[in-house]
């Protein structure tokens, strides 16, 4: 390999500058601190913490997860410590770790979403708020807001008005027209859209005749959903001007590159962290190596360069 200067992996999500385009996906990375034994989490583009609600949430009864072919279903029910404890106990330690971090939030009502967003103003270092308008696993949860353009734009407008922070809206894939959902978020003032959240699925035991998950249905994630996620991210990129953050089944650098190729400004890595806690940093290194091999100097020289004609 000839001597070359390292490629510039900087990713820009609106006003937010990330040192690289690889983030951890919410709910698959705890509050970030759990990964400090494995590597320095300040190396990540950003850490997206587990979905936060106004009050601590107990979550669903077990069984909460089940493996499926090349994927898994989860119905955690958004168990979390609540925004209060996040602000007092977690945020300071993420600051100490030098991490760039984003809070994923949800509420059972629009008012709860607003309240959580407002409270987070107290965290100066918080890079952005990711609005989970699509959690399939809480009865009242975001899904109500997340399945129609109207519902989504209403929610987004309200939360937009409640915070100065950059606002990322996380989209549900369980819709007929993902482009329309992305546009609804854009028009309502979102700074970026993130997709995909999990696809609603189900698993049953043919012998006991019972659902495997206490919640009956759960959210599908992992390699199995990658082709669907990639297509939706591609459609969203064509539908909006704001940055699109790609998620879904990313396991290795090559997967991440595919999302960047179809136009994603950055990616998030979720389920892959479970089998390989080092997945995120290995993906960052893999993207860098690929750029060096292919003589690509800046992320933007690669991003969105898919050639669909001849």
């Amino acid at each position, binding site marked *: 390999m000839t001597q070359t200067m390292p490629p510039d992996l900087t990713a820009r999500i609106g006003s937010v500058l990330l040192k690289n385009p690889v983030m951890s996906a919410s709910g698959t*990375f705890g509050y970030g*601190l759990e990964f400090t*034994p494995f590597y320095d989490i300040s190396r990540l583009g950003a850490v997206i913490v587990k979905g936060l609600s106004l009050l601590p949430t107990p979550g669903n009864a077990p069984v909460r*997860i089940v493996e499926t072919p090349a994927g898994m279903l989860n119905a955690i029910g958004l168990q979390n410590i609540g925004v209060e404890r996040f602000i007092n106990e977690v945020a300071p330690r993420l600051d100490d770790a030098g991490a760039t971090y984003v809070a994923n939030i949800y509420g059972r009502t629009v008012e709860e979403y607003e309240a959580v967003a407002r409270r987070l103003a107290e965290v100066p270092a918080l890079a952005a708020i990711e609005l989970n308008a699509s959690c399939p696993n809480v009865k009242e949860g975001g899904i109500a807001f997340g399945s129609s353009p109207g519902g989504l734009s209403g929610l987004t407008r309200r939360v937009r008005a409640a915070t100065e922070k950059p606002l990322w809206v996380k989209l549900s894939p369980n819709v007929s027209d993902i482009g329309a959902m992305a546009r609804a978020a854009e028009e309502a003032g979102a700074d970026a859209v993130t997709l995909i959240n999990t696809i609603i699925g189900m698993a049953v035991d043919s012998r006991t005749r019972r659902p495997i998950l206490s919640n009956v249905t759960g959210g599908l994630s992992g390699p199995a959903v990658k082709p669907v996620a990639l297509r939706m991210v591609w459609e969203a990129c064509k539908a909006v001007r704001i940055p699109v953050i790609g998620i879904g089944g990313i*396991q290795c650098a090559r997967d991440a590159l595919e999302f960047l190729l179809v136009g994603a400004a950055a990616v998030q890595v979720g389920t892959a962290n479970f089998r390989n806690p080092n997945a995120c940093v290995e993906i960052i290194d893999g993207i860098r190596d690929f750029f060096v091999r292919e003589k690509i100097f800046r992320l933007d020289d690669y991003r969105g360069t898919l050639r669909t004609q001849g």
Partner: protein
Amino acid sequence: MPQGNARFVHGKILHNAGTGAFYRMEVAVPDRIDFVPGQFAMVSGWPGNDPLLPRPLAIFRTGGARGKGTVEFVYKVVGRGTALLSGLHAGAPLSLTLPLGHGFEFPAEDRFWWLVGGGVGFSSVFPAAAVLDAQRSDFEIFLGARTRDQLPPGDWIPGANAPGRVHLCTDDGTAGFFGTVASALRDRIDRRKPSGTARVSILACGPHAMLKSVADLALPLGFRVQVSLESSMACGFGVCWGCVTAIRDGGNSGYRRVCREGPVFDARRVVW
């Protein structure tokens, strides 16, 4: 909150062979692993994404030195993941995240130890036995299985030589005590000379129903009972909240992660 010494390592299988109902596998790892009995590893290594998730296995034994360690596991083939593991040959690569979870506690004031293993549950109580044996503690081992051939080989049992130490039980009476481990414990309790006031401390691992009956039997007698629970896991190190179990803890009751606050819990806190 972070488990200080947990790490993700690439290992190489040294040997992996079936002995009776169980497979015993030794894996070479980059460094020596220090662990607390009851702690476990998340293990994967088969090619492809199906099965996708690593499988939790209790750390049976570790060895080696700085820069050159070994880890041993004992497992039973119950499904696809363990079947794939059993098909791996010496030299095959394996990915491991370890050591994980909250293991057994050994309070100095406890003087009589009863270690209870049901099925493959012995894989997490034998390491405890090894510790107690090393510190010359007074311990007995109760092993339950459906039939004789579901019991571990005698030479796997730490300190088995000591007379009256090992109690075997089989549901079909083909070996040792004819009945469940719980009934064997009750029998042992009846025969027990009240040696002072020192209470017995029980460490148990095995099927959920067995753990419950052991707790129901021993807690009323004031024994201290620690149980190692099982649960389906995705990450094994506390980031997915998939493995929880309900824990009684006064005003602070709720779902706890078996992989992190557990797998070993105080039996009094477990909501059975």
